[in-house]
Structure formats: structure tokens, C-alpha cells
């Protein structure tokens, strides 16, 4: 289950990824929507699931299903092996070495809430500062607002330049106050695709004595990750953004930090001994995993990681950047289109956010949907980004490993239909 597959990364080599071969692994893509073949460009919201992962889920429920860590029977042994073994795969995917540093959660959101609640409540006090950025998804803002309200800590923000990149020049001054206890920064922006200079931020924050949490919901899916090289103390990810099932995600944290944190939720599985008044906690990682977990989801994450490793994160990112480049070039030729995010395609993962002068993003999305092209329109759970650029919403096309040049062309053709209707 947790056999090292780093070999596959190497054999993946540097030949470009062939999306037509990849598409064969995703049965959901072989369908028509409103009479047209589906073009799925909403991958930043959720990615599709390869057959290997579907089979892993099916195999779990049809062969191995049992509760973990309790049964002394064969099925419980198998389910426990799958559930525990997959930690090693996720750890390897993000460059971590100790599987016990991987805590299963419902997703990236719950992982951030876990740290904000468990670490934040125990460590933050009035006058302390939490450093966030304007680029964050609401899931990396609201938990910190909640913990700040409880502890009296103050929120500070890194702001964006006109291309949607974080401005680091005010960082030394913010850190000079010596009050930043933790910085919570997205690895890759879901709204603009910007790949953030996390390593540089982490270096400065840690030099000033703070911790760094990296929101990797998009990062772990779309860019190679090495938590050590990034200098992260916590890294969170979401299964369904990286070819895994919904309802499963993970928190990676440095062991000494996780050890020092109180539990997040109480219940079965997370205890060592329970008395009438007090209980003692289980060791890592189970201390943070109260209740029967998402066993099938965790087990299938091993398969999702192995699938992605077989293709190679560098090749996946290069493929996405190729599609972004093609899309940006095409969009520049359409009158009235406004682009958001870095001009350099290599400065972003597979996201293109745009508006049109005459048509609102919702109308763009409805017209594209009628042509079988699925995009997202709205604020992308990043209202601070929308406010920064003075728009209520954008249209967003987001790519993944199975998208093709033809998908980009169908998007661009659909936008011509928008112009036919809206002018």
C-alpha cells in the first residue's frame, strides 16, 4: 500500500504529458452535456476522479470495509492497513518524511480550522498578530478571524499588486514589530492561479520567530510540493482537488508542534484512557482524529497520489501552463476581455480568471454551459481578491491534466457566442 513510488516520478521524465491518454482514465469526461461533448474547466473547484481511484473506493467497500483500529478480525486489519498506509503516500507527495505527521481531515478547510482552533486557542493572546494575504480563499481567512476574535489577536495582511502577485516589500516592516506568531498563506491562488513566493515569505516569517501554515488546496494538486524546501510548519491539502474523493483532506504539521497542541475534537479514536472527569490523549496522529474517520476516502488517497506520481507533478504543471498560455493568447484577441492574474503564464498554475465588458460572468457561464463547457463564475470564495480588483465576480476557467488544446478552443469559441448575444 505504501510502497515507495518515487521511481515513477523519475520514469515520468520530461516528455510532455499527453492529455488524450490521460483522458481515457476519466470515465466522467466521456459524456455529452446539452448535446455537446463535455469540456470540464472547473478543476479549481473540484477535479475529476480516475478509474484507479474509483476502483479503490469500490474495492474498499466491496472487500475490506470495517472500522479501523478496533476489530481483531481480518477485515479490520485490512481497512486499518489501507487507512494508515495512505498517510505515507500523502507524506511522500508533499516531501514529508514521517507518516505520523499526516492527520486526516474532511478537507483543507477542516485542516485549517484544526490548526486555528487547537494551535491558535492555546498559543495566541491579545496583541499577537496573524499574517494573512488578500489572495486567500475564505477557508484561510474566516478560521483566523474567528480565533482572533476569541483570543484578541490581530490580523495583518499582505496585499496584491496589479497583476495579482503578493507584494512582499512591506513584509520586513510588518515582521519588525515582533508580534507575528503565524503566517497563513496560500501556495497557489484558486481565484487567479498565482503561485506565491511561499519559501521567501516563510524564510522571513521564521526569522522573525513566527510559524507558517501553507494552504495547499490548490498547491498540492497543481504544483510540486516540498514542505521542507518551502519552510512550512503546517501544510494542508484537499483530496478532491487532486483526483481523490470528496470529504477527505490532510493536515501535515511538524511533529513537535502537533504534539504540543491540544486536541481539536473529542470522541472515540483520539483517546488513550477515559475516566469520569478526565481523559488522556492518543499519540499522533490519532489525537486529532476523533470518531470513525473517512476510511474509504483516506485509503483511496494512496491511489490518487500514486496516479499523480505516475504522471509527475512537474509535467502536470507544465501541461497546465501550456493551456494557460494558449488561453491567455486567445483571450487577448477577444475585444472587451479583462484578464486577472500574472501576465507570465509560468507564474501561475492552471487558472485563468477574466471578465467581459458586455456580459456578466454568470451570463458567460450559462452560455458556455449550453455549449457543454463547464466553468465557474462568481467570487470564488475570494471576496478580498474581487474587492482588490473592483469587480463583484469573474469567470474562471481552470485546467488539469486531462484538458486539451481543443478544450481551450471550445472555451474561446463559446466566448464568441457570448459576444453574438451580448455584443
Amino acid at each position: 500500500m505504501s510502497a515507495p513510488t518515487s521511481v515513477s516520478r523519475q520514469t515520468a521524465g520530461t516528455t510532455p504529458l499527453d492529455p488524450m491518454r490521460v483522458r481515457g482514465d476519466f470515465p466522467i469526461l466521456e459524456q455529452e452535456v446539452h448535446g455537446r461533448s463535455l469540456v470540464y474547466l472547473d478543476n479549481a473547484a473540484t477535479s475529476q476522479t480516475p478509474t484507479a481511484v474509483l476502483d479503490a473506493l469500490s474495492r474498499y467497500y466491496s472487500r475490506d470495509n470495517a472500522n479501523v483500529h478496533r476489530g481483531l478480525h481480518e477485515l479490520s486489519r485490512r481497512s486499518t492497513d489501507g487507512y494508515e498506509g495512505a498517510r505515507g503516500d500523502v507524506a511522500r507527495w508533499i516531501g514529508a518524511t514521517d507518516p505520523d505527521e499526516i492527520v486526516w481531515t474532511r478537507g483543507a478547510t477542516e485542516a485549517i480550522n484544526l490548526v486555528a482552533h487547537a494551535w491558535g486557542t492555546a498559543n495566541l493572546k491579545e496583541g499577537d498578530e496573524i499574517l494573512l494575504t488578500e489572495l486567500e480563499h475564505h477557508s484561510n481567512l474566516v478560521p483566523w478571524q474567528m480565533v482572533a476574535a476569541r483570543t484578541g489577536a490581530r490580523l495583518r495582511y499582505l496585499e496584491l499588486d496589479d497583476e495579482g502577485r503578493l507584494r512582499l516589500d512591506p513584509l520586513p516592516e510588518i515582521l519588525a514589530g515582533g508580534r507575528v506568531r503565524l503566517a497563513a498563506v496560500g501556495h497557489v491562488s484558486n481565484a487567479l492561479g498565482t503561485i506565491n513566493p511561499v519559501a521567501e515569505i516563510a524564510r522571513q516569517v521564521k526569522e522573525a520567530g513566527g510559524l507558517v501554515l501553507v494552504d495547499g488546496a490548490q498547491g498540492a494538486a497543481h504544483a510540486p510540493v516540498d514542505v521542507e524546501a518551502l519552510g512550512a510548519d503546517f501544510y494542508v491539502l484537499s483530496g478532491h482537488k487532486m483526483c481523490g474523493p470528496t470529504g477527505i483532506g490532510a493536515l501535515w504539521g511538524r511533529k513537535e508542534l502537533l504534539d504540543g497542541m491540544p486536541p481539536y475534537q473529542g470522541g472515540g479514536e483520539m483517546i488513550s484512557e477515559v475516566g469520569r472527569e478526565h481523559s488522556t490523549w492518543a499519540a499522533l496522529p490519532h489525537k486529532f482524529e476523533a470518531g470513525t474517520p473517512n476510511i474509504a476516502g483516506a485509503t483511496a488517497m494512496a491511489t490518487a497520489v500514486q496516479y499523480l506520481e505516475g504522471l509527475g507533478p512537474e509535467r502536470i504543471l507544465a501541461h497546465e501552463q501550456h493551456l494557460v498560455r494558449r488561453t491567455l493568447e486567445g483571450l487577448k484577441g477577444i475585444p472587451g476581455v479583462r484578464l486577472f492574474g500574472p501576465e507570465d503564464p509560468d507564474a501561475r498554475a492552471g487558472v485563468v480568471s477574466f471578465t467581459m465588458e458586455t456580459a456578466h460572468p454568470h451570463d458567460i457561464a450559462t452560455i458556455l454551459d449550453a455549449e457543454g463547457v463547464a466553468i465557474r463564475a462568481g467570487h470564488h470564495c475570494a471576496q478580498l481578491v474581487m474587492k482588490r480588483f473592483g469587480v463583484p465576480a469573474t469567470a474562471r476557467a481552470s485546467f488539469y491534466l486531462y484538458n486539451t488544446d481543443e478544450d481551450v478552443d471550445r472555451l474561446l469559441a463559446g466566448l464568441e457566442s457570448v459576444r453574438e448575444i451580448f455584443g
Partner: protein
Amino acid sequence: MDRSTPPMKALYQQLILDHYKNPRNRGELEDRTVEVHMRNPTCGDEIKLQLRIEDDQIVDLKFLGDGCSISQASVSMMSTILKGKGLDEAHQVARRFTGMMHGDEEAARDSTLGNLRSLAGVAKFPVRVKCALLGFDALQEAMKKQQEEEATAGS
């Protein structure tokens, strides 16, 4: 070649696009008696609706808003129809329009809906129905608010 599919034409009728591009009664109503701010949190559409209601009659109304063609055209059309109408009639129009949005074909033939009938096609796009109803949600909230304020003032 016109590549827009038939349902798109049914949805985006000229009348809707005209109201979207040239909204009627858009602006601030200085002598308003009631104001409501409505927001659709999932998509960010928003409308500020201001009315002058005297003796149970909508003497004047204006709106400010930001959103998709459906939400903005709907509130623009609503404003042209409701000016001068009594509150009972306004409630009736709101009921009929809501019915039309939920597929009531009889409501879609009701001439009291006027231009709003051009939005009948929205009923076939369930995710867009809430856009079309945003203005009417604001209207109903405003009428309720005015009524409550009058009740408080009168007691």
C-alpha cells in the same frame, strides 16, 4: 453561422438585453420612505431598492445594483411595472412572477406581468431563477419593512 443554441435565444431575449444595457429607474430616490439592500451570497448579485410608498401606493421607486443580465433586467422591468401601483397589486405581481419562475404557465400568460413575461425562459434554468427573483425578494422585504415601520409609528 449563428452558433448560439435555441435555449440561449429563448433566455436572452432582446428585451432582457435592452433592460440590462439600459436599465430603467436606476439611481437614488431622494424622497424615499423605505430602502432595502439585498444580496445573493452565492453569486454576489446585489440590489439596493428604494421606494416612496404613500397611502399603500408605490409613488416612485429606483434601484442600484450590480449583477448578471437576468437579475438587473428583472428589477428594471419590475420598476417600470410597479410605479403607481397599489401594494395589493404589487404583491399580486410578485406572486405571479414567482409562480412563472417556478414553471406556472398560466402565470406566464398574465398580462399584468407586462415585459416581465420575457423572463419566462429563465424557469428552464433553475440555477438562474434566484437571479430573476432578487428584485422581487427586495420588493417584498421593502413592503414588509414599510408596513412594520408604519405599525410602530402608529402604535
